[in-house]
């Protein structure tokens, strides 16, 4: 590739830009692209555009509430006890959490301030008409003993949370979910859905973070 003419080199490098941005090129290709964009303004612009596209694609989340896995139905389908498509209930994903008791809403009243949590006087976030989209919910998850790192990672992935580097206590992980202005009912459903996973023993909201005005 080092003997290519300038135009050919530019074309070859341009084709690789998406994978330069998503960081899957091998080392030699990455070095060649990096060297090229150091001298090519057009390719630098394209890297900027592709980075913008990547951010939009990765942060856009039209389906933040992933339905719970329907393992039993899948296994039933293996035996021919279910239809090929297994189940057709489009709202099944919403109902999957109903086996778990409603969590204590009072846990929502914990509020992060200073070094610890302090209870606000009343709950006025998720149900407030003035609720703003950028509300974060801090959730603590306690995993069942023996849960593998892969299962934990899958759970964090399922709820769109970054995997914490370490637990806050033994077996307890604290994650922040940007769920927007959920109604209290939807928030409860979401927490119940998380808690219904077999690898999770408890899931509770310990804080609600409002945007600073």
């Amino acid at each position, binding site marked *: 590739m080092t003997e290519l003419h300038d135009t050919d080199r530019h074309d070859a490098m*341009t*084709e*690789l*830009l*998406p*994978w330069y*941005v*998503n*960081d*899957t*090129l091998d080392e030699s290709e990455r070095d060649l692209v990096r060297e090229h964009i150091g001298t090519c303004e057009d390719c630098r612009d*394209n890297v900027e*555009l592709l980075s*913008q*596209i*990547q951010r*939009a*694609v*990765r942060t*856009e*989340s*039209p*389906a*933040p*509430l*992933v*339905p719970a*896995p*329907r*393992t039993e*139905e*899948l*296994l039933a*389908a*293996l035996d021919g006890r279910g239809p*090929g*498509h*297994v*189940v*057709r209930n*489009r709202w*099944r*994903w*919403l109902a999957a959490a109903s086996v778990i008791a409603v969590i204590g809403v009072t846990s929502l009243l914990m509020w992060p301030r200073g070094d610890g949590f302090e209870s606000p006087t009343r709950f006025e976030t998720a149900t407030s008409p003035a609720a703003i*989209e950028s509300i974060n919910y801090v959730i603590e998850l306690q995993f069942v003993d023996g849960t593998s790192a*892969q*299962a934990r*990672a*899958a759970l964090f*992935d*399922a*709820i769109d949370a970054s995997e914490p*580097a370490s637990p806050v206590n033994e077996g307890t992980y604290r994650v922040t979910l940007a769920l*927007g*202005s*959920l*109604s209290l009912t*939807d928030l409860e459903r979401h927490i119940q859905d998380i808690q219904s996973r*077999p*690898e999770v023993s408890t899931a509770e909201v310990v804080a609600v973070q409002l945007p600073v005005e």
Partner: protein
Amino acid sequence: MSTSQTKSRWANRELEERALLELIAAKDRDALSDLYSQYHARLFKFVFRMTRSYSAADELVNDIMLAVWRGAGKFRGDSKPSTWIFGIAYRQALKRLSRKQLSIASHLDVDQLPDTQSRAVEQEDWVRQGLETLPAAQRLAMELVFFLGLSYEEVAAVTECPINTVKTRMFHARRKLKEQLLSSASGENTSGEVE
């Protein structure tokens, strides 16, 4: 977590998934359950992005796992398990799109979404709008590269296309999005489909 630790973790995950596929090929139901729990969320998000339909995505995930169950014996191990599984997902979703005549670009069953999500869907930025005007093959290539983070070899394997075709699709997709951005800035319309 350091880069080497992350790489090691992913390497371990790949080994575990290969072992699970071998067990599934031998009709081990527990192995299928394990793989299902590991892939369910990722597959749902991916096929939802392709179909823009909650109900279709909900059905498709289990269809995909059934296909994994039936086809695990054909996994030759020359690609990552995730590439093979997402290849199945890609083809199943395309089949569904064709059968149901859903259009990736135009169909979004907002009525099936809870209100909070409907609002989120309505808040489209220009990139999202631009992506939805792309021909299906180009849009899907963008999803595979930027949503799943696949290399060009992996995209070629998933889509069963030559690498040069994958690169060409991405090139044209980017060019079209750039034209749209420029025309959006100047208030003009663009036209012309390039596959």
